C-alpha cells in the first residue's frame, strides 16, 4: 500500500550508525582477521571448503542474522516509546507493519551479503555464477525463521533487555551453527547443530560441492523453525495488543 512508509523506514536504518557497525563493520573485520591468515587453506577442518569461502558464508550468516533480528529491536523500541500506538490509530494494517519491518531487516541482510561477497572476492573467492545465486537464495530462505523470530522477540522482550537478548541469541546461534569453525562428524554437538536454523545458513556455503547444500533435513529444519517462530510471533503480537 505505502511504498513511502517502507522507503522512509529504510532511510532511517541507513542513517543509523549502529547498522553500519554491527551488520557491516563487525563481519568484515572478523572475516579478515579469521580468514585472512588461512587464505591458502583449501579444506577447512575437513569440510571440503576453502577457508575464505567458509568464513565468508559463516560471517554472512552472523551479519544477516543480526540484521534481520534487528527488526525485532526496532519493534521493541517502538512499543516502548508508544510509537506503535500512534501507528495503531492510522489505517496501517498489522500485516503491512510487519512486512515493512521484515523487508527493512532483509535489506540490511542483503547489504551484509553484498559486502561480504566483495570481501570474499578480495581473498580470492571465485565461484560459478550459479553457485553465487543458489547460495544467496538459500541464505534468503534460511533467514525467514529469523524474521518471524524477530517479530516475536520484538513483542516479548522489553526494550532495555532487547540488546543483550539479541546479541546473546546471535552469538549462541552463530557458535552452534558453525560460523567460527566447521561442524563435522556425528557427535552430540553436530546433532544439536543440525537442528538449528543458523547451521543451515552456514551450510549454504556447500553449494559448490556437488549435490544439494541443504538436503531434506535442511529444508525440514528451516520449515519447522519458520512455522514455530511464526506461531510464536502471532501469539506474542496478540497477547501484546490485547493487554489493557
Amino acid at each position: 500500500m505505502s511504498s513511502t512508509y517502507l522507503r522512509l523506514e529504510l532511510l532511517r536504518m541507513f542513517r543509523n550508525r549502529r547498522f553500519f557497525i554491527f551488520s557491516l563493520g563487525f563481519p568484515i573485520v572478523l572475516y579478515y582477521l579469521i580468514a585472512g591468515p588461512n587464505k591458502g587453506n583449501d579444506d577447512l577442518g575437513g569440510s571440503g571448503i576453502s577457508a575464505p569461502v567458509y568464513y565468508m558464508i559463516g560471517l554472512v550468516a552472523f551479519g544477516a542474522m543480526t540484521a534481520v533480528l534487528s527488526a525485532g529491536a526496532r519493534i521493541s523500541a517502538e512499543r516502548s516509546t508508544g510509537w506503535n500506538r500512534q501507528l495503531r490509530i492510522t489505517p496501517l494494517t498489522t500485516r503491512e507493519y510487519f512486512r515493512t519491518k521484515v523487508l527493512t531487516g532483509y535489506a540490511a541482510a542483503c547489504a551484509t551479503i553484498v559486502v561480504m561477497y566483495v570481501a570474499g572476492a578480495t581473498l580470492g573467492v571465485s565461484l560459478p555464477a550459479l553457485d553465487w545465486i543458489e547460495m544467496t537464495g538459500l541464505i534468503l530462505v534460511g533467514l525467514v525463521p529469523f524474521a518471524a523470530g524477530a517479530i516475536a522477540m520484538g513483542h516479548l522482550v522489553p526494550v532495555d533487555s532487547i540488546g543483550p537478548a539479541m546479541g546473546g541469541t546471535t552469538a549462541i546461534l552463530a557458535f552452534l551453527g558453525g560460523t567460527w569453525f566447521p561442524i563435522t562428524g556425528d557427535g552430540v554437538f553436530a546433532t544439536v547443530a543440525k537442528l538449528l536454523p543458523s547451521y543451515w545458513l552456514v551450510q549454504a556455503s556447500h553449494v559448490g560441492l556437488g549435490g544439494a547444500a541443504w538436503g531434506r533435513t535442511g529444508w525440514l529444519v528451516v520449515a519447522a523453525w519458520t512455522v514455530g517462530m511464526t506461531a510464536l510471533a502471532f501469539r506474542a503480537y496478540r497477547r501484546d495488543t490485547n493487554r489493557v
Partner: protein
Amino acid sequence: MRTEVAPAREAVGGIRLAALAKTFQSPQGPVRAVRGIDLDIAPGETVALLGPNGAGKSTTIEMLLGLTRPDAGTVSVFGLPPEGAVDAGTVGAMLQTGSLIRDLSVRELVTMIASLYPEPLEVDDALELAGIASLAGRRTQKLSGGETQRTRFAVAIVADPELLVLDEPTVAMDVESRRAFWTAMRAFVAREKTVVFATHYLEEADAYADRVVLMATGAIVADGPPTEIKAMVGSRRIRATLPGADRALLAALPGVTEVDLRGEAIVLICSDSDAALRALLDASPAVRDIEVTGAGLEEAFVQLTHEEPAAEAA
C-alpha cells in the same frame, strides 16, 4: 460558527459512547477506571473532557480510539466502531504519552504518516497549521519538548481527520508553547472538525471548548457549556488582612460562598471573586494585602463527586 453542520456529515452521525465501562486489575484489587458513561458528541463540536488525574479521561479516549477494549458498552464514531473509523482514516489523535521515532526529519516523519491515509493534507499545509514549518528539516531527536508536541500535533492532523482526539496535549509545555499550540489547534478547528480533548486545566477547557464534560472517578459529573462548568468548579479564594472583620458582613458580600477568619487574616471562597472584591473594597476600605487565587480544582472535583452520589451509581 460550528453549529452549522453539513447535512452529509449529519447523516453519518457523530460520536456516541453508550454505557461504557472499563475495570483494570491492579495489585491492590480492581480499579474501576470508567464506570458506565454515556456521551453523545455532534459533528463539529469541540468537547473538553475535564478532570483530575485518575478521572478516567485517558481510558475513555483509548476506548474511543479502539486502543482499549471496553468491558461493557459501545463506541460509535460516525456510525462505525472505532477500529472501522480508524481504518477509514477519519480519526487523528495525539496520545498522552509517546515520543517520535528518530533518524527522520520533521517533514519526513509527517510524510510517513500522511502516506498511510487515503486523503491526507499536503504535508506542508500540516506543518504550517501546526506552526512548525520552520522546523521541517530538523531531525526529530533534536526537537525541544514543545516542538515535539507540535510535531505530534502535525502527525495527528495530517490525516485531515473528521475527528481529532487530543489527550492532555499541553501537559509539560511552558506557557509560550502552550499558547502556540492552541493557536495551531484553533486554525485546525476552523475547518469544521469534531474535536475531543482531555485536560486538567479549567482555563483550557473554558477557552477552547464549546462544551465541557466534567469527569471524576470514572464518571461524568457535569456536562455543559464552559461558563456553566466554570461556575461549578472555578471558585476563587480572596485572602486579605482586615483587622476587626465582621464575619456576617463578609458572608453577605455578593459572590462570597464561604468565610474563614484567622486572626486579622480573612479568607473568602468566592463563586464570583470580581463582584466580591469590589464589594469588599467598598465596604471595608481598611482591607490590605489582597491576594486572589484559584481554588484547587482537585478539591472542587472531590467536593462535586461527594455531593453527587447518583453519578457513582451508574
